[in-house]
């Protein structure tokens, strides 16, 4: 699919897919879906399952919304999207309950709260309602994976600092004194702020370097022009 993309065409399926992974990452760039991001990321496993569940709901709802986009009247579109999303969340809720009861208890009401995740409704409204099913689904899967990635990044840090483990495997031996506050609510805010701070510093560095390069090139060009004259 990606090889045959012509220049200046609408974004190819591959681009649709990669967009949400990093460039427009739903959590770190768009700051959407904060409730589950902060609430369930006390461990990497919880984060991963929440991410996968959200990805499924996102992809399935975006596919259906996109397939039905010509049939849904404009006036009731939000209500329709919500009903579609709620249906898939109910499916996910029952599926997780059937697969692992431990996980179901750990995530609790936050699985059903995927309905109120702004990310899902936002993508349905902003992307799926205007694009054909394939593009919409690929974009949704990309966004979902980006969401999962950021959740695991936050959950991983919180688990390592707060429990001294990663995916349940103990890392530092029995003498490790866990930094308990990291698995408590304030830790969520702090780890999220830490990641955002890191990205903002890296972005500013890159910008400054680009500006410096630009200036150096401009200086070289003017001096070259002087020599030419």
């Amino acid at each position, binding site marked *: 699919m990606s090889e045959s993309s012509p220049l200046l065409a609408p974004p190819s399926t591959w681009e649709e897919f990669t967009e949400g992974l990093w460039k427009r990452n739903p959590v770190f760039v768009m*700051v959407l879906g*904060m*409730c*589950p991001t*902060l*609430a369930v990321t006390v461990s990497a496993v919880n984060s991963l399952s929440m991410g996968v569940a959200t990805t499924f709901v996102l992809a399935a709802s975006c596919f259906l919304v996109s397939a039905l986009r010509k049939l849904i009247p404009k006036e009731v579109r*939000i*209500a329709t999207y*919500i*009903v579609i999303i*709620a*249906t898939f*969340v*109910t499916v996910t*809720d*029952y599926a997780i309950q059937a697969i692992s009861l431990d996980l179901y208890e750990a995530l*609790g*009401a936050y699985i*059903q*709260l995927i*309905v*109120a*995740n*702004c990310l899902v*409704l936002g993508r349905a409204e902003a992307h799926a309602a205007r694009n054909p099913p394939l593009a919409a689904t690929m974009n949704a899967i990309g966004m979902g994976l980006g969401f999962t990635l950021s959740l695991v990044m936050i959950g991983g840090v919180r688990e390592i600092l707060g429990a001294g483990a990663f995916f349940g495997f103990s890392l530092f031996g029995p003498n490790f004194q866990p930094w308990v*506050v990291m698995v*408590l*609510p*304030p*830790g*969520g*805010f*702090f780890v*999220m*702020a830490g990641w*955002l*701070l890191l990205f*903002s*510093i890296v972005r*500013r560095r890159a910008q400054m370097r680009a500006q410096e390069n630009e200036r150096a090139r401009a200086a070289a060009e003017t001096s070259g022009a002087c020599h030419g004259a």
Partner: protein
Amino acid sequence: MARESLWQILLTTILSGNFVLAMFLGMCPFLGVTHSVSVAFPLGLATTFVIVIASLSAYLLNWVLGLAHLEFLRLICYIVVIASAVQLVEMYVKKNYPPLFRALGIYLPLITTNCAVLGVALFQTARDYDFMQSITFAIGGGVGFTLALVLLASVRERVELADVPESVQGTVLVLMLAGVLSLAFMGFAGLGGGA
């Protein structure tokens, strides 16, 4: 769980189990409309109203669905009821307080996707609260939400004047402030017999 006294529930939801700072419900308005107290407070009140309506309807709905053995429709019914309640509040605010309506902007209809509202409905179902407990839970949740919003807004109004490094400005700063507030609220842990 179901034997908690009303006073316990009220205290827990406002302080030690604060919806925003301990349960991370309703983060979008918490990060989005807390620029100034004059906007945060009315939004908190509007949300409280919707939360109480949602809690009442959720209790009745749950009872009706339980009679009909249609529990799997619970989530869909809740969200439809909440959307209608928000529509009601929106029309009322638009008619009676136009300036406030403009100030709240997109965040007023977005109460529909505020997890705090749906959260109340889901948690009260999950914890098997009876009627009075549900109402207390909803009022406490709303008051706690308003409290968190107003607190963060007033802190942010002060920080406006401070000289903050450029990399920290924006969301990072708000998250750090929220973290400190949340840390402070942890001091209430154990109050009201634990969450």
